[in-house]
């Protein structure tokens, strides 16, 4: 199964060559084959899409600057509000821990499946897609039931609940992490790399750490990044585990108390997220793997 991501691009012609070709002197028979720079049809679609995506953002922005007399009051309030940074910080930390644990579980698993037990691949894939199937509210209720009674009680303490939150998010991250790692592994020849490393005397840990992880850099980054985006935006599980310090509940609370700030906050987080995504795309330039899938609730 391949939920996004793939190896190897199609075009090996440099862009300036394409531009030159497109803007060359044309003979009559040739006109009408490709109309101008880029396809006009493609431009139309793109512009429509861009309109659809940006107009609501503009709407949110316009709303957020309705405050008088200072139109950026909402933004100032947000940036002055310690809870904004606390919420962001808390969710960010939870996100990072989630990513680390998820990587530690997923990368060896995906690697092992590819190398040793390819027959179990459908099972593993199915398990990683399960989080799509279970509604978050059901998941969190189940978690609370299981871990608020003996033998393992986690919900009683802050640390325990934080732990539970992380574990729930790790589960939520499985589809994206596994997809990203699996695709990344597909585009590097895992078997050959492993055999080469083994013939040079490397053991499993070293192979994973020095050979596999570095080559999966982009895949890991994109999977990690998506997980972060999910964690920061997540609401249901955080609320039910009484993690009001998280960013999702903070945003929701804000929505109820103040009229203009939620718009400002969501725009800020949207912008920050997009910048980070661009940073990843920039870092991963030239590598074979691509930015990965995301899903919404």
């Amino acid at each position, binding site marked *: 199964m391949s939920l996004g991501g793939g190896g190897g691009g199609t075009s090996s012609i440099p862009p300036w060559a394409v531009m030159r070709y497109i803007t060359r002197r044309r*003979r009559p028979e*040739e006109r009408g084959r490709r109309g101008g720079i880029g396809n006009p049809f493609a431009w139309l679609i793109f512009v429509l899409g861009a309109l659809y995506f940006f107009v609501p953002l503009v709407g949110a922005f316009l709303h957020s600057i309705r405050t008088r007399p200072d139109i950026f009051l909402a933004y100032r309030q947000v940036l002055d509000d310690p809870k904004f940074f606390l919420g962001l910080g808390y969710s960010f930390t939870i996100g990072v821990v989630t990513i680390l644990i998820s990587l530690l579980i997923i990368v060896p698993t995906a690697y092992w499946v590819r190398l040793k037990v390819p027959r179990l691949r459908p099972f593993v894939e199915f398990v990683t897609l399960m989080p799509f199937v279970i509604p978050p509210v059901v998941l969190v209720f189940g978690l609370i039931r299981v871990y608020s009674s003996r033998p393992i009680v986690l919900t009683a303490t802050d640390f325990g609940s934080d732990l539970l939150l992380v574990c729930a998010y790790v589960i939520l991250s499985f589809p994206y992490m596994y997809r990203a790692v699996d695709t990344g592994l597909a585009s590097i020849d895992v078997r050959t790399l492993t055999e080469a490393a083994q013939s040079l005397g490397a053991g499993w840990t070293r192979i994973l750490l020095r050979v596999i992880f570095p080559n999966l850099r982009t895949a890991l980054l994109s999977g990690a990044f998506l997980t972060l985006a999910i964690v920061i935006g997540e609401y249901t599980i955080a609320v039910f585990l009484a993690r009001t310090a998280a960013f999702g509940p903070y945003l929701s609370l804000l929505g109820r108390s103040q009229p203009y700030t939620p718009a400002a906050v969501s725009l800020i987080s949207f912008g920050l997220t997009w910048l980070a995504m661009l940073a990843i795309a920039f870092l991963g330039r030239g590598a074979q793997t691509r930015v990965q899938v995301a899903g919404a609730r």
Partner: protein
Amino acid sequence: MSFLELTGVQKHFGPTVAVEDFNLAAERGEFVSFLGPSGCGKTTTLRMIAGFEVPTAGTVVLDGTDITYRPPNRRNVGMVFQSYALFPNMTVGDNVGFGLKVRKRPSDQTKRRVHELLELVHLGDKMDRYPYQLSGGQQQRVALARALAFEPEVLLLDEPLSALDAKIRVTLRHEIRAIQRQLGITTVYVTHDQEEALSLSDRVVVMSEGRIEQIGTPFEVYNFPQTAFVASFVGTLNVLPAVVVDSEAGGLSLAGQSFRIARPVTARVGSTIAVALRPEMVSLGERLTQDNNVRGTVVDVSFLGSIVRIRVAVTEGVVVTVDEFNEPTLVLPQIGETATVSFPAEGPLVLESIPVVDPDELIAEA
């Protein structure tokens, strides 16, 4: 007028010159190969004939019509791709019939033609298979059938055999040539394998760095190379630095040992020139009947099947490669022994005004 004419064709990609001043006049039914190392421009030129690239300058004329700027789907040339490029969602039969379907031929006619071509490539029973069910060699044959189905005026092949096993490569290339002869279709064949080019073609175009080095029959190109590149790219070649002793009489000296070539030399006495000598012209062992005998030390003996290749160092850095036919009675020299190599005066060719090209350097650059 020739059937396929390329005149003054050039292709620039920004500052890079991929093809420069390419001129070729191919006759109807001729089999022409473009031979050269990677990056020499042979594929780019082929793609200009097919229409996937447009020349920066120059013209492509097919049967009197200028097709230089015609889009590829209106050219009536058939192309076989290196990667086969069979459509994975269609059966073999549908793949082969695609060109006819696009031209809106009636379906019974298409069916008949598809059968005909699949029989021609010996895959008549595979009509309902899908490409992924076939081997590489079979896929390539389907690609060939597909390219020929709509009766193109020219057949273009872009390194069609490079992805296949050695044995299949040999059988398939003979099949391709046989079919080409049978149909009498003008063909352009791009390859970096000189054995392929030499054994299949009516004429070979040897290319290097975007330029044509030489056009000629395989015999001509092999035996009478016009440039050092052709001499060293086509076949194995000894290139020896010889000092001119007597221009008129063709007297030269190699590391102090004198030898003679059959024609006068234009370079002046005392200068060093490059002399090319084919290994098969050289014999091992002193032959008083031969014009030239040169002594040296054996540095390598390689067994190549039907040929034994012996390398004799005349002096430091000057090595003569000798090819001897493998016979049971052959006594192989030991490394380190002194040996004499002999060759006739007609053997060596002078490569005028060209620096000595070391074949090993060519390997390092590849």
